Structures are given as structure tokens and as C-alpha cells.
């Protein structure tokens, strides 16, 4: 094991994850998620995150269809979709996605179709952005492990 390489990768990982928190992509719930990962469940975080992104994709499709017809918007279905998305983004620590969901819900409540369309677009953008970022993070993790190192514990307040 090349300790210099490992140390460099670990440093990179640490800096990257801290930046994700600082830029508001992630919140403390993501740390909670990481606590649940261990030798028995080494891929828990990536599995859950993957489930979340699948949900995002499906829900955004459904909500998009609900919003299609200007005079026939199913706000009830929209509300249900937003509720689910808000719940899962909250559980994963996907802070920006969650915040868009909060605005999205407000638009639903007042049946503001234009507002909902904007939120939908934003949610789509945010989840895809987060997906790329987390993919980079998981890649770094894999590199560390392959180099024989351990993934650093990062404390976020």
C-alpha cells in the first residue's frame, strides 16, 4: 500500500465532502446515513442514494405528466409526489432538493401551475447535480479502498 497515495486520496475525499456540506448540497442527515454503513452493510449509503435518485426520476416523470394540460392539472397527485420527494430527500440529507420541494409544495397548495413547472425544473436540475457530485464522492471512496486505505470519518456540525 502506497501510504502517500492513500493519504492524498483521503485528503481529497475529506475536502470534497466538506465542500458538499458547505455549498449546501448535503446536510447533517447525510452524516447520519454514513453512520449506518459498516462492514456488514458496506454499500448502504450508495444503495440508499441510488434508490433516492430512482425515486426522483420516477416522481418527476409522473409530476411532469400531471402538469402537462394547463386546464387539467392533478394537484392532488402533484402534492403526493412532492410529499414523497420531500420525505426521501430529507432522509438522505439532500438539502437543496428538499428546499425546492418546500417551495414546490407551496405552489401546489395555491394551485400555481407556473410555479409548479418552475419547481419541477429546479428539482430535476438539483437531483441530477447531486447525483454527479455523489458519484464523484463514491468514486473517491472506491479509489481509497482499492489503494488499501480506509474511508475517513468526517465530522459535520
Amino acid at each position, binding site marked *: 500500500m502506497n501510504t502517500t497515495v492513500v493519504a492524498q486520496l483521503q485528503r481529497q475525499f475529506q475536502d470534497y465532502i466538506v465542500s458538499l456540506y458547505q455549498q449546501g448540497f448535503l446536510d447533517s*442527515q447525510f452524516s*447520519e446515513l454514513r*453512520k*449506518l454503513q459498516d462492514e*456488514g452493510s458496506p454499500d448502504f449509503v450508495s444503495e440508499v442514494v441510488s434508490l*433516492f435518485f430512482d425515486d426522483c426520476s420516477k416522481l418527476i416523470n409522473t409530476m411532469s405528466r400531471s402538469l402537462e394540460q394547463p386546464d387539467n392539472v392533478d394537484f392532488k397527485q402533484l402534492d403526493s409526489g412532492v410529499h*414523497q420527494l420531500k420525505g426521501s430527500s430529507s432522509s438522505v440529507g439532500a438539502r437543496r432538493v428538499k428546499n425546492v420541494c418546500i417551495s414546490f409544495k407551496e405552489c401546489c397548495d395555491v394551485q400555481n401551475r407556473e410555479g409548479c413547472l418552475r419547481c419541477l425544473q429546479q428539482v430535476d436540475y438539483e437531483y441530477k447535480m447531486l447525483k454527479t457530485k455523489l458519484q464523484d464522492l463514491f468514486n473517491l471512496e472506491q479509489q481509497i479502498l482499492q489503494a488499501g486505505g480506509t474511508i475517513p470519518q468526517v465530522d459535520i456540525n
Partner: protein
Amino acid sequence: MVMETESKFHVLAVDDSLFDRKMIERLLQKSSCQVTTVDSGSKALEFLGLRVDDNDPNALSTSPQIHQEVEINLIITDYCMPGMTGYDLLKKVKESAAFRSIPVVIMSSENVPARISRCLEEGAEEFFLKPVKLADLTKLKPHMMKTKLKKESEKPVAIEEIVVSKPEIEKEEDSSVIEILPLHQELESEQLEPMLSSNKRKAMEEVISSDRSRPKYNDITTSV
């Protein structure tokens, strides 16, 4: 049916969302619990062995086919579910003489005080706001210990173990021995009942009446 003294707590987790089931399952496993997850209240009742009478949906009876091998120390359920809500499930569990001693915890992503107090009044032990954290689950240990101690005293155990449990729990054990045992054993216990001293029967009544806002039920709801 073998129960080891050192066996883990077994929790039944109910949530219609696959994502949330995965989360709660991992949280519970990480807290050293054995977990069974189901996606609806009706499946939860089925798992417990409660059969809903087709003619009278309000009547609950214990299915004679289910041997109740499964020992559940706690039920944790989402509040918002299609069909049977977590609140409905809570009510059904508390209405069942066989299962009302199982502690029930409700989870919800919404902080609605009226909802919370309604659940607590109906007998829920705790109400957790989602996302549930590992730290929240440490609150569950004392509730699960109660049912564990009850179950363990059903087997022939050393006298020291029974002495260790609190007197109130011992009294509850007497009543639950009759309620929780599988059907054929229950019949035996019922025959034994008249032989119980009046002291024990009085203790049972005291326990039932002192239960926090539990509905009063006259008898055991097992079908013969």
C-alpha cells in the same frame, strides 16, 4: 419453539415506502434488532396472526392456523399509509387482548401536535419525526425490555431471573401468559385460571385498570 435468553429484540416495521423501509430496517439492524418489514397495516396484522373476520371487519380473532412462533417486541409504523393508517393499526393492536402489550411507535414526516397527542392517547409509546435517527432508537430499548422479560418468564427459568424483574412486570406476566400463548396452551391456562388465588386476579385487574388510556375489554378474543 425455542427462545434463547440472549436473543435480539424483534421489531416489526411498517411503511408503504420502499425507501423508508430500507432506512428503518438499517437503523434497527444497527441498533442490534432483528427486523421484519411489511408495506401495509393489514400485512402487519397478518404477520402478527390477527385475522380480520370477513363478516365483521371490526372483530379481530387470532387465526388458529398461526402458531404465533414469531415473538414481536415492538411495532414501529409510519402514520400516513394508504388504506390502514398507522393510527388505525395502533388501534387494532391495542384492541387485541393478545397483542396490546406490544409497544407501538408511530413515525411521521409531519409535525402535527394534534396527531401526536391522538397517537399517544391511543397508547403509542413514542412518536418519532422523520427522518428517524439512530439516537431516537435508543429510546426504544426500555419499551422492548418489558415484553422481553414477560416472554422470558414463560419458560422454565432460574428463580433469580424472575426475582430480578420489577413486581409490576410480574403481575402483567400473569395476565399475558393467558393472552399470548398459542391456542392450545391458552385453553390449558384457562382451565387453570379458577385455581389462581384471588390475590393474583386482583393484581391483574389492577394492572388493566391502571393502563394508560387503554380501552377496557372484558375478555380474551381467541376463537375456538
